[in-house]
């Protein structure tokens, strides 16, 4: 936190803002004392909770890591500069976010702008990043449109895959289990009626059907639902071995607790966003073990373990085991691209991000068409870690435990 130097940017807004905009002064290297990193993240409003877990802590950690290491070396300019931060609250609103990005680009002359949290905000700010030529490292956006978007906005990078990636991986994993005879043919799906839930259920429904599964329940519930008893009561009578919920964090937690209460303990219990959160084991108690969800990490990676430690030390909370590591990796990519290019030429850095190979906490990363294709897609809580069971490019780090242990009734 000490590295923050927030400029009081807006003094006498109207006139001075205009004046600065008109001037648009080029900043010369010899005047520089720092590389300016700007970001607008939701600190209030509906998205604040999500950003507070996957996005903001990683931005803080990265800035801290870089500055502790003495800053970034810009070889062409012959300097090593620390990072300074300009941060805004986008108030969970696309309109505010777009304006904040415009402001970071043109008023604050940020050298790099880090994206906000979530699929919608990343899409909403895509054109603005592109217009001003800033690379956009979309580490918390899940969209099947990624290939199109990457073509449309040359500066955009899509690092968290699309609904199909996660849905197909889950189905493939379950097909193997069915072949092994551990689960029956019946699947129930409940999805939150919001971007994430719909994207995944849209991909999952046909994938399950094509794989010969019988979808005995496939419905959505509205954002903000707190009582899942009706869904669980209905599903528990349908004889399914596999329950899949493409859910959001509050729902994920409530579904777990209410399934335990209803003693609905299917062999495969898969939940959406929130399963990979560090607080999940605390909420589910002993019952977190064996729960599957979206995301996952490689439990054998020492680098990742070190990242978890640093993150916990700085932020007072562990990172989640899905988007957090990818967010941090995206920052490492940016860092390495800057050092390789040797100055702050954003076009060159964007090109390097597209084509280079990077060494990150999630291993070696090379983007394909501006997308990260090497992703952990299905994870499961095993021995206190949310281990990756399925990866888009390599084998899982662990075998799935199916059936999961039966629920332990809460004390």
């Amino acid at each position, binding site marked *: 936190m000490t590295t923050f130097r927030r400029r009081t940017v807006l003094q006498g807004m109207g006139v001075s803002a205009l004046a600065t905009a008109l001037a648009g002064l080029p900043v010369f290297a010899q005047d520089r004392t720092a590389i300016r990193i700007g970001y607008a993240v*939701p*600190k209030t409003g509906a998205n604040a*909770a999500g950003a*507070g877990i996957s996005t903001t802590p990683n931005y803080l950690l990265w800035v801290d890591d870089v500055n502790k290491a003495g800053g970034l070396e810009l070889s062409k300019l012959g300097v090593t500069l620390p990072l300074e931060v300009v941060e805004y609250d986008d108030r969970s609103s696309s309109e505010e976010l777009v304006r904040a990005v415009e402001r970071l680009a043109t008023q604050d002359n940020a050298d790099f702008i880090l994206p906000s949290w979530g699929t919608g905000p990343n899409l909403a700010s895509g054109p603005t990043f592109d217009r001003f030529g800033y690379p956009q490292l979309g580490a918390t956006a899940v969209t099947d449109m990624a290939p199109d978007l990457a073509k449309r906005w040359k500066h955009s990078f899509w690092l968290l895959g699309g609904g199909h990636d996660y849905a197909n991986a889950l189905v493939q994993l379950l097909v193997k289990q069915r072949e092994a005879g551990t689960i029956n043919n019946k699947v129930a799906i409940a999805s939150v009626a919001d971007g994430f839930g719909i994207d995944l259920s849209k991909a999952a429904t046909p994938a399950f059907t094509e794989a010969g599964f019988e979808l005995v329940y496939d419905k959505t519930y509205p954002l903000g639902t707190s*009582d899942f008893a009706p869904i669980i009561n209905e599903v528990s009578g349908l004889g399914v071995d596999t329950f899949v919920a493409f859910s959001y964090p509050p729902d994920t937690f409530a579904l777990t607790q209410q399934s335990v209460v209803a003693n609905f303990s299917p062999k495969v219990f898969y939940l959406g966003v929130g399963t990979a959160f560090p607080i999940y084991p605390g*909420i589910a108690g002993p019952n977190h073990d064996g729960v599957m969800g979206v995301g996952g990490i490689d439990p054998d990676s020492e680098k990742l373990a070190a990242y978890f430690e640093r993150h916990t030390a700085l932020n007072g909370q562990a990172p989640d085991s899905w988007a957090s590591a990818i967010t941090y990796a995206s920052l490492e990519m940016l860092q390495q691209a800057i050092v390789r290019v040797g100055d702050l030429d954003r076009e060159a850095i964007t090109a390097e991000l597209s084509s280079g190979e990077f060494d990150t906490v999630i291993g070696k990363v090379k983007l394909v068409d501006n997308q990260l294709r090497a992703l952990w897609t299905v994870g499961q809580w095993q021995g206190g870690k949310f281990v990756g069971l399925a990866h888009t490019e390599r084998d899982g780090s662990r075998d799935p435990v199916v059936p999961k242990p039966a629920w332990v009734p809460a004390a």
Partner: protein
Amino acid sequence: MGVASARSVLVAHPHPNPPHKGEGVLLCLSNHRSAHMLFSAILTGLVLGGTYALVAMGLTLQYGVARIMNLAYGDIIIAASFGAFVLFTALGINPLLGMLIVIPAGFALSWLIYAVMLQPLARRSRDRGRLEGDSILATFGLLFVIQGVALVIFGSGFMSYSFLAVPVDIMGTTIAANRLLAFVLAVVFGLGLWLMLTRTRFGTVIRAVAANPASAPLVGINVDSVARFAFAIGGALAAAGGVVVSMYLTFSATMGVIFTMKALIVVIMGGVGNLMGALAAGLILGLVETLVASFIDPGLTLAATYLIFLAVLVVRPQGLFGKAAR
């Protein structure tokens, strides 16, 4: 079940024990499993509605007696949830005992808020319209302050803990003990409040102010202190609601407004200032939610809630139990 299977296109519906392939709702309901589902839906609906009613009773008291449309009501609830959370996780105090601390704190805080912030507004405004405008703006500000303090102390993350998440069996339907407890508490608080309002002298005074604040002083009632007390009782109920809710819901610092709006809907649907109205409206909304989720489509629960609410107002513009305006 029948309706559900007819609506969801992609679902192939095997009946576990098909008696006769049920067509239509009635046939399906005659089916034993569906009858059981109906019973369990009604039970869970009542339990959910109990929480709504509990949360709304405090607001109806605040608006009905103190004439304050308190937009920060939900944030008091969340603040109480945080209180229960801290007591439970840091000090190991179980939420039921925690209530003994949190509820008086809610009472005191609301008393203070009214005395310091709202009373001057109430005193200076002659007509009700102006107080309404002022109180909307002031409590809108209060909402941000409470939320901001919670954000600074607790951050924006999700909070949840597990308390009494054990199943209770009621005639074959399992319900979480914490939810049942919430229902019981709603009934206890509702009954207690109702007895206080109808059986005590002070309750009569409160009702007199609610019915006619202008002429209450004529019979020697100090409207200021009654309003302050009612506002504080409302705050205590909000705190009770907050503790109860924290036992089974995931909450975060920014969720207060959701509770405010839900409570307002219940209050308005029941009729402003009417406890029975709040109770009835809360239960109706809870029932509608679970019945729609069980028999039509979970995707339509909130739509149905609002539809019922709007329909009630179209038919009875003064709410279920409200007195006709003018």
